[in-house]
């Protein structure tokens, strides 16, 4: 089946022109299977989880737990209870930051965060450091956007507890050498958390071979339901970490003298979960597996942007195997916002601005960038249309 037929929004028009959706890194489109599954659960299988004995509760619980198994299998997590459902990457990292902080971080301890991180993988660590009087250290990237792994060696001290990097930056689109960073960290007794919001979309992720300790991602960027996400963590660590939220489902016993926590994963899943959306991980993962693995669009857009006058591409490499089809550019003499506005009127949806990575914008000396991010349902025709629209927009602005 044609993959495009599975995504109803691809049939849309904007301003009378066919929509060319190139903002997939912000959120991907939804396939029919996910939409139908969500509707089916909402129409027929709505019930709260775990709590009741009735038939529908069992069905809802089964659907929810099937999603956990699907995710476990998809990322090759050793154990199903290491998969914790959250509302997204942001929630997952905040939860991790709070609970890691309580369990492992004390005054004067150090946390290393890469310069290329999304605010979601930076601000929670700043908050933690303020709360615990810990020290935040910056892991730099070079001019091509590559993380300076050698600099990491220098940054790690006996006080370093944790390193946080994205698998793939949402601005640079380069696959970071996670395994290498993981072994470096582990040799020094440092934990590694990976922001996988973009990584999960473009890589087949095996948390065991990556060797990280935590991996966070969102459902909505991998064709799943918005408001869903995952924190995967190593069981021995998660077990030492106290829950961030207290409430229903996360307790073993509650009395006035105190409460005890339910075992993983429920310890971290307090309150009513998104019972319609989380089960859709099953369909989202099926969609992921059906996606064509073509690199033609990526190579074409990369080469074309590299050749364009006045265009600077951020996140460059000699080896395109480490680049995903996500392109952030700055154009000399044309503001990113003007470009995005004109492209929009041509039917092309792209992102402009700081892209939730203000420190990285400062690093490259720009006020913002223009980003086109492709999904496998985007075609060569769309890529060509994007490039010719971009050329036109630049001419208009000159």
């Amino acid at each position, binding site marked *: 089946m044609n993959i495009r037929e599975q995504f109803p929004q691809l049939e849309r028009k904007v301003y009378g022109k066919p929509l060319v959706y190139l903002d997939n890194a912000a959120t991907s489109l939804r396939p029919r299977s996910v939409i139908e599954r969500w509707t089916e659960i909402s129409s027929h299988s709505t019930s709260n989880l775990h709590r009741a004995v009735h038939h529908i509760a069992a069905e809802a619980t089964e659907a929810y737990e099937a999603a956990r198994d699907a995710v476990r299998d998809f990322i090759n997590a050793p154990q199903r209870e290491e998969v914790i459902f959250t509302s997204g990457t942001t929630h997952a990292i905040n939860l991790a930051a709070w609970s890691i902080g309580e369990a492992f971080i004390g005054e004067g301890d150090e946390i290393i965060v890469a310069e290329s991180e999304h605010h979601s993988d930076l601000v929670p660590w700043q908050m933690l450091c303020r709360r615990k009087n810990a020290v935040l250290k910056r892991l730099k990237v070079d001019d091509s956007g590559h993380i300076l792994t050698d600099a990491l060696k220098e940054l790690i001290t006996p006080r370093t507890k944790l390193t946080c990097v994205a698998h793939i930056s949402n601005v640079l689109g380069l696959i970071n050498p996670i395994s290498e960073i993981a072994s470096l960290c582990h040799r020094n007794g440092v934990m590694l958390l990976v922001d996988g919001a973009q990584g999960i979309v473009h890589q087949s992720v095996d948390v065991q071979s990556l060797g990280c300790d935590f991996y966070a991602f969102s459902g909505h960027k991998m064709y799943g339901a918005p408001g869903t996400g995952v924190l995967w963590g190593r069981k021995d660590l998660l077990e030492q970490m106290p829950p961030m939220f207290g409430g229903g489902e996360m307790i073993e016993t509650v009395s006035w003298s105190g409460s005890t926590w339910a075992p993983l994963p429920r310890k971290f899943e307090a309150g009513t979960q998104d019972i319609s959306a989380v089960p859709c991980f099953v369909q989202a993962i099926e969609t992921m597996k059906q996606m064509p693995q073509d690199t033609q669009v990526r190579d074409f857009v990369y080469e074309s942007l590299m050749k364009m006058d006045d265009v600077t591409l951020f996140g460059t490499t000699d080896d395109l195997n480490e680049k995903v089809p996500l392109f952030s550019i700055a154009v000399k003499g*044309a503001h990113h*916002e003007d470009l995005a506005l004109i492209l929009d009127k041509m039917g092309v949806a792209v992102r402009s601005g700081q892209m939730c990575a203000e420190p990285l914008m400062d690093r490259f000396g720009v006020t913002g960038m223009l980003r086109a991010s492709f999904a496998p349902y985007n075609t060569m025709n769309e890529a060509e249309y994007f490039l010719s629209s971009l050329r036109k927009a630049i001419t208009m602005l000159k």
Partner: protein
Amino acid sequence: MTLKEKQEQIIEDFSLYDEWLDKYEYLIELGKALEPFPEEKKTDDRLINGCQSRVWLDTQMSSGRLVFTADSDAIITKGIISLLISVYSDRTPEEILQDDFSFLDALGLKENLSPTRANGLVSMIETIRAKAAENE
């Protein structure tokens, strides 16, 4: 030209273009034609908050009239502020405060800008109003 006449003229100019891309061309031309704004006036206190791009607005009083000059690092935004200046600069505070800024609705600008830029437009209007109120 009175303030109302100027607004009507802009509405008429704008209506010559059916396509939004052409309207952008028009705004870009306005932006390019805006008088140069001195670098030393690009200070934070002249920045209008709430815009994705940076917009600076300078206000002077000259024989009872407000004189606005402005700049932006984005050209379409610069076109928009230029359009506002052409209407509201060199007017008395009373003239500005009596106007309801509804000519912008006639242009369809707010609906056709991205939400961030529409917010920016609202901030520009509020700043112009506030300056008029300060100098009344």
